[in-house]
């Protein structure tokens, strides 16, 4: 057991997998010699050498294309897209090529690859460097989508992603990089498609992802002071989605709340709500409520950004009000 930051967990996770399997290679902008713009990948170049850890030009299409081509011919690449916002400049490779290759060729092509990206807001980086875009990926068939909330999950889910035979988009939350927690020593391997119940309650079920998990937990503590006991589910994996856990927990409390960092329309919560509204309808005791960023780009100023992203206050107040009415 060691205290580890989420940031350090990234480097440990990559090293764990590169040490295990020579086919694992790693590429991206400033990832090698400089150790990554978020200092999440130091030491890898030194340890695994320049053919396995490659610095690239600012060419996101080429980075992901190279990862795809390498995956289909025997390697297991890890590619970094520095900020998840930059998926927009290489979305064709992700959504039209990587996601579709296996299906279009009816299985001739396998793409065991992972694309890491620093996702989410809170760092006052403004509208083009702060987006939470897990929903972009969830909407495209053929992509697996993971977003860890803790250092331990960074390692375990990353290992599962690298070992998975399909393409996985791995969203690291940049506001969580400094977050610390105890992490067991030795190899950690988790499973994709498994949610974690982080807190158990009988009154309401709160679903959250990545940086919204600690906020949901804090809100649940506050709600408990008012006598509202909430279950908090860390969704962790959007595709595959652990609908079994979600439906079970919603059925138990009869009330569902999502806490989403993404702008309002078509966040990941919309899908979960739709599944529940079809499959768990008769167990619901009241409206389903999504707590999200408004449908706006993120502003840069600290005061405004803090107003935009769901805060512990807003989560608490929204749930309290909904539970009363």
């Amino acid at each position, binding site marked *: 057991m060691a205290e580890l930051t989420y940031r350090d967990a990234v480097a440990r996770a990559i090293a764990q997998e590169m040490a295990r399997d020579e086919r694992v290679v790693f590429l991206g902008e400033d990832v090698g010699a400089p150790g990554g713009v978020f200092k999440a990948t130091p030491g890898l170049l030194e340890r695994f050498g320049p053919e396995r850890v490659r610095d690239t*030009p600012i060419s996101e*299409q080429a980075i992901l294309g190279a*990862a795809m081509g390498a995956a289909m011919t025997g*390697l297991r690449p890890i590619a970094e897209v520095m900020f998840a916002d930059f998926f927009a400049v290489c979305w*064709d490779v992700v959504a039209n090529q990587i996601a579709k290759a296996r299906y279009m*060729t009816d*299985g001739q092509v396998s793409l065991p690859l992972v694309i890491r990206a620093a996702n989410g807001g809170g760092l006052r980086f403004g509208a083009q460097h702060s987006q939470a875009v897990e929903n972009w990926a969830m909407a495209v068939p053929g992509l697996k989508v993971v977003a860890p909330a803790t250092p331990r999950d960074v390692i375990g889910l990353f290992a599962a992603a690298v070992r998975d035979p399909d393409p996985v988009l791995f969203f690291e939350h940049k506001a969580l990089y400094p977050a610390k927690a105890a992490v067991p020593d030795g190899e950690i391997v988790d499973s994709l498609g498994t949610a974690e119940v982080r807190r158990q309650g009988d009154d309401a079920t709160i679903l959250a992802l990545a940086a919204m998990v600690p906020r949901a937990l804090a809100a649940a503590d506050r709600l408990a002071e008012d006598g509202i006991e909430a279950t908090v589910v860390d969704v962790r994996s959007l595709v595959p989605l652990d609908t079994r856990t979600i439906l079970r927990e919603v059925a138990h409390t009869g009330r569902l709340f999502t806490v989403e960092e993404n702008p309002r329309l078509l966040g990941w919560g919309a899908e979960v709500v739709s599944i529940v509204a079809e499959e768990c309808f008769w167990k619901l005791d009241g409206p389903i409520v999504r707590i999200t960023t408004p449908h706006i780009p993120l502003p840069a100023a600290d005061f405004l950004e803090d107003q935009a992203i769901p805060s512990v206050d807003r989560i608490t107040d929204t749930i309290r009000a909904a539970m009363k009415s």
Partner: protein
Amino acid sequence: MPPPGLSAQDLYTPVGEVRAPVALDLFRTQVRLRRFEKRAYDLFLQNLVKGTSHLSLGMEAIAAGFAAAMTPEDYTFATYRGHAHTLARGAPMDAVLAELLGRDTGLLHGKGGSMHLTDVEHGMMGSYAIVGAHLTVALGAGWSARYLGRPRVTVVFFGDGATNIGAFHEALNLAATWRLPVVFVCENNQYMEYTPIRAVTAVRRPAADRAPAYGMEPVLIDGNDADAVFLTASHFLGRARAGDGPALIEAYTYRSTGHSRADPAHYKPADEVAAWAKYDPLDLYRRRLLDGGVPAAVLDEIDASARQEVDAATAKAKAAPAPGPDRLLTNLWADGGSSWRN
């Protein structure tokens, strides 16, 4: 005689000569592609090829020349205009034609169609329908070959129009910087869909004039001369295989039909069409072989056997069943299924 619109000094002159067995092979491949594509067009008009189809009629020398210069382990990446490259690498004609007809016996069981032909077993790593995308994918095949110590070269074909999209630029720069064993081949057939490439391109030779921007030599060849293609391909594949890095080759050619489906290509000037009709790669090559002393009967026999092969493939494909409904939900994931939940 240089192709219409070019002079001899525009052209890169490959060294070497083509020996008899290779020459006959080049002829045979071109004939097979020609017969196949003419049939594909007929079947399209009969509404048996659904969706769309992009033919390489008039451009067969490029696919034939490169395929002959490649080893079975080398990788090909092609565009939606990929019938020729797929067949040239050895994919079974039956399965290719069945794919065009959307049959269960198709190369991809109907899931890909004409624009996405893929035959990994024969090194044909896919046909890509978003202009430019596969140039970046080819990088990875080159990288893995080097990393795994396999002496494989990746050849990636694309059109003149693709030289103006961003992915082209990123791919060429990365290939050069990493010195990857990738040969980029621009099939300059002088048109995008309906717009002449010169109307939308800042330089006269869309690929060759860009090569120096990636530290590469400009190479423009006669894409309708299978020998020139073969010799040039052999040279640059050899270089790449030896670790001397990528190349960018512009093969000047002409598509004798429309862009896709039943496009009548009214946008092409009549004199241009006429000039190129006299510069058909298959006619040129047949004449060259005859001039070189190959008996006409040998060539006719090759043609007859290609016709037979196409007829047989047609009959088989027509008789084949459509894919069953169970195919719909298979092979999204490596576990064979498409489930996104538990």
